[in-house]
């Protein structure tokens, strides 16, 4: 078996090595195609978002300063006389697509494939090594005339249905964002999506392992911060650097039982609309490179008893995130606590008070960046015991749409210590 693993590893390395020197690689998923730009515009290292990717996301999949319906080619030029040849190469292509009743010029579809090779010394089935095609996900995203953004992801294939809350062949996300509704700086988001709680979406990371603060669940409750839910959300960027979101979630036809709110503020760096800060190019300052984003959020909800006994679970979560970027170094800190009145759905009720903390330090190598080294520490107390995880990892992005991540997880559980090695390959096209 070990020989087979070595052979697979050698094959993966052999496939990856020729990609190492690839130049001018342009990835082509849906947003990249629609906006005619490379993946690195929004991702320093795919799929982790940079400031511009975050601004694009917050503004309903439109470049933030673009007004609804604005066409690139109609903006004033300094000379007032752009040459036809150059216009053909740039904005004229956009205009044609925009003029055609808002339908994107490119079919806004892309797909991601994730495969992994893993070693788990406490594998439940006794097989320590697994080589798995974990999932194939179809994505759609873009905007109609910059007025309505849309995004959808659906699982075409999921290897282990028990690991996916939505199961295979199910829609994971599908929502519309009505941008700047009635001229106000407010976006209305409607559909199935991750309610805006944490600073980071579940895909906003370079390794496969989710942050414990987003992924943890308490007892039999299906709720986690990164669960997608049917929801209605209003969000707005206020004074360029404050982002506010509030929404309610439909839980089994009981709209209004679940509600949430989020506030985040950025100090330094580009603001939430993607505008650069004022920097004096004549003088060096630490503040020119430093960006700090702070977030607080809360969620109050209710889980119906899936067993029908009537013993539901009232719960809440309160959390905070901090994201610091300085040149090539990034530090993320996340903390969430809460209370579940009856997450076991049993009688008599057992109250639990979860507390989960995660922190990650990351450093980018290369120009353009192709490698990130990181270390993550997680502390998870769901009310029944404490789990600590130590995760060193390295991610290599040979092309802008391919991510190879090697991570090791040392998981210190109350009854045992688990060790897991994971080589994860994600391809998006």
């Amino acid at each position, binding site marked *: 078996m070990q020989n087979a693993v070595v052979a697979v590893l050698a094959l993966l390395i052999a496939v990856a090595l020729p990609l190492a020197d690839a130049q*001018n690689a342009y990835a082509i998923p849906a947003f990249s195609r629609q*906006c*005619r*730009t*490379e993946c*690195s*515009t929004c991702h*320093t290292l795919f799929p982790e978002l940079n400031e511009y990717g975050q601004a694009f996301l917050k503004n309903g999949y439109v*470049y933030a*300063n*673009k007004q609804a319906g*604005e*066409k*690139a*080619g109609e*903006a*004033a*030029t*300094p*000379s007032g*006389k*752009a*040459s*036809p*040849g*150059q*216009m053909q*190469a*740039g*904005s004229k292509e*956009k205009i044609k697509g925009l003029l055609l009743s808002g339908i994107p010029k490119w079919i806004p579809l892309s797909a991601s494939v994730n495969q992994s090779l893993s070693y788990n010394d406490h594998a439940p089935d006794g097989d320590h090594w697994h080589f798995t095609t974990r999932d194939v996900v179809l994505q759609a995203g873009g905007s109609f005339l910059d007025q309505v953004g849309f995004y959808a992801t659906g699982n075409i294939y999921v290897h282990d249905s028990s690991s996916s809350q939505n199961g295979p062949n199910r829609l994971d996300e599908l929502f519309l964002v009505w941008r700047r509704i009635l001229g106000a700086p407010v976006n209305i988001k409607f559909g199935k999506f991750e309610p805006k709680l944490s600073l980071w979406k579940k895909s906003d990371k370079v390794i496969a392992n989710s942050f414990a603060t987003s992924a943890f669940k308490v007892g039999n409750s299906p709720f986690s911060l990164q669960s997608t839910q049917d929801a209605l959300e209003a969000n707005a960027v206020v004074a360029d650097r404050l982002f506010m979101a509030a929404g309610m979630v439909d839980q089994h036809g009981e709209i209004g039982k679940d509600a949430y709110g989020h506030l985040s503020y950025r100090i330094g*760096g*580009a603001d939430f609309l993607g*505008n*650069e*800060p004022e*920097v004096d*190019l*004549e003088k*060096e300052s630490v503040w*020119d*490179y430093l*960006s700090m984003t702070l977030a607080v959020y809360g969620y109050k909800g209710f889980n119906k008893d899936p067993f029908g006994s009537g013993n539901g679970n009232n719960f809440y979560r309160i959390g905070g995130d901090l994201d610091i*970027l300085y*040149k*090539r170094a990034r530090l993320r800190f996340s903390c969430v606590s809460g209370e579940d009145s009856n997450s076991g759905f049993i009688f008599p009720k057992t109250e639990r008070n979860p507390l989960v903390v995660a922190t990650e330090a990351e450093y*980018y190598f*290369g*120009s*353009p*960046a192709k490698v990130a080294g990181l270390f993550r520490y997680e502390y998870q107390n769901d009310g029944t015991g404490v789990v600590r995880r130590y995760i060193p990892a390295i991610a290599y992005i040979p092309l802008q749409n391919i991510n190879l991540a090697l991570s090791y997880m040392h998981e210190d559980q109350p009854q045992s210590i688990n060790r897991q090695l994971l080589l994860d390959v994600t391809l998006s096209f």
Partner: protein
Amino acid sequence: MRKLLPAILILCLFSTAAQAGLTVVGKGDNMRFDPSAFPPAMKSAYEIMKVRCIKCHTLERTVVAITTGIAPISGQPFDRKATKAYGVKMLRKPDSNMNRQEIKVTVDLMNYLLDEAAR
């Protein structure tokens, strides 16, 4: 003259129309400025631009932005305020590998090119 005429015709084929003070050569991904008429300081700045900027995108994007006055991806006006903002963006971009001096001369170059394009 018989040899010169075809050469001029071929040269015309590979040159695109440009602003009064700027010469643009090539098409699509190969589009770039002809720096032969630039002042010496701008020529050396162009050497930096054509090495650093193409690490992430082609020079076509810069040429289109300068000659049309519109940033082709964002659709925003590309003026002196924008050149400074793009300079700051590249200074802060974790993997641009451009130092302050390189940023400054590149911003100066883009401003010079904008002025030439407006002539």
